[in-house]
């Protein structure tokens, strides 16, 4: 019974949303209800995610596991941000500086580490992948894009050289479009599988 209820819910909601594309005026009240419910559920799920994180770190602190200082710092920072948000409100300059002056450097540092990681990985690309057409094409297009972006080659966009460069610059986009088309098709089939209840990983099967 529980399984049937889940399948029916998926089918009804999915078909209603799809039908709403064609029958907007007739189905708009139902669609509004669906969207409103969906928004509430997603927001609640977002809170659940934060709750998961907190519970994980609280458990770690209670059990006295290794390196609990990180969990303690996280919990304290969370509490400060939460309380400050309620007390100072997000419109407050102090609150804004408090959050951004921590968040921006941390995230920017991570991106810097990512840059070095990718730099090191690009050094070892051939060693990992070997001399394959994919790796050669990847290397070639990466070097070309970097050279163009660095401004070392500057030609007028209306000249022949500029047009050739523009053509070469757009070539990787062709491949990217192909990948996106394939992924869109895969997404379509995946959605149909869920609509037709062929895939029900959440249904206890």
């Amino acid at each position: 019974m529980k399984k049937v209820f889940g399948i029916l819910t998926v089918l009804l909601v999915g078909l209603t949303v799809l039908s709403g594309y064609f029958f907007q005026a007739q189905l708009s009240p139902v669609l509004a209800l669906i969207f409103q419910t969906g928004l509430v559920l997603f927001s609640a799920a977002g809170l659940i995610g934060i709750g998961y994180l907190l519970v994980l770190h609280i458990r770690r602190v209670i059990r006295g596991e290794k390196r609990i200082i990180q969990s303690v710092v996280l919990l304290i920072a969370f509490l400060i941000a939460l309380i400050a948000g309620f007390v100072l409100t997000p419109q407050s300059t102090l609150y804004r500086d408090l959050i951004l002056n921590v968040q921006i450097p941390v995230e920017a540092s991570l991106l810097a580490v990512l840059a070095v990681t990718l730099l090191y990985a690009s050094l070892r690309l051939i060693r990992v992948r070997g001399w394959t057409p994919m790796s050669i094409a990847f290397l070639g297009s990466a070097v070309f894009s970097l050279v163009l972006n660095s401004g070392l080659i500057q030609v007028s966009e209306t000249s022949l050289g500029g047009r050739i460069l523009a053509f070469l610059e757009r070539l990787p986009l062709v491949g990217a479009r192909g990948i996106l088309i394939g992924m869109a098709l895969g997404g379509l089939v995946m959605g149909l599988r869920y609509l037709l209840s062929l895939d029900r990983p959440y249904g206890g099967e």
Partner: protein
Amino acid sequence: MNWALTGWVFIGLGIVLIIVLIWGIKVSPAFLRTLPFTKRLIESRAETVECGRYQQIFLGDNLLSQTYPGLGLSALGALPVFLDGETLVDGNSRVSSPSGEILVFAQQILQSRYQDGFSEPLAEDLVRIGPYGPTPISFIAGLLPALTRQPYGTLVLLGDYGPQASLAVKAVLDQGGRVFAAAGSITSQAALFLNVRDILLGEEVFRVSEVMLPDPQKTATILVEDILRVLLILLLVIGAGLTMVGVL
């Protein structure tokens, strides 16, 4: 006939083909293309369990994505494949995502795999599900220390995620683990291509559950995908040709 209607035609055709190929014509398993990714993933997971190391299964940053609408669902659909009996008993596995929606579904899937008798307070070694951070980059910031705290043998990346996943990849590779990525976004595919040997690109990212646990229904959907792809290619080529000659 506009492009939106063309899309609907594809959707309708997809539905019809799936129905015909699943409940009508029997599809030969030969259509299921084997990927070396599968064999290596199975070997790595077995080796990880045998060596007492950990597995990390990452389900992506978002359940819903405008550009990659099926990726989150695909990751959830592939999750049961990784929760086999050995993994459930071993317990040295972690499933994670910054997205609360994904975590809720994942928790339900995990509980259904453990089935009756699932009791977290009573069982010490369970597959654990949880986030390391609420946003994509904060998630990676939280994941990195976790990856170095225990010896990880396998890292599986599923769903929709960005290039920052390269940091997690490196952390696992540094300790001799292996990484398997069904690369989500275009940028993550480019970033992970550098150092992940076993990577699925494009529409292959949706086929993880199909290649790991093939069954006639999944084989049929693969065939449907192939048919639609061929039709789309023909449509594009014909459309480009007609545009060139000025008809369209």
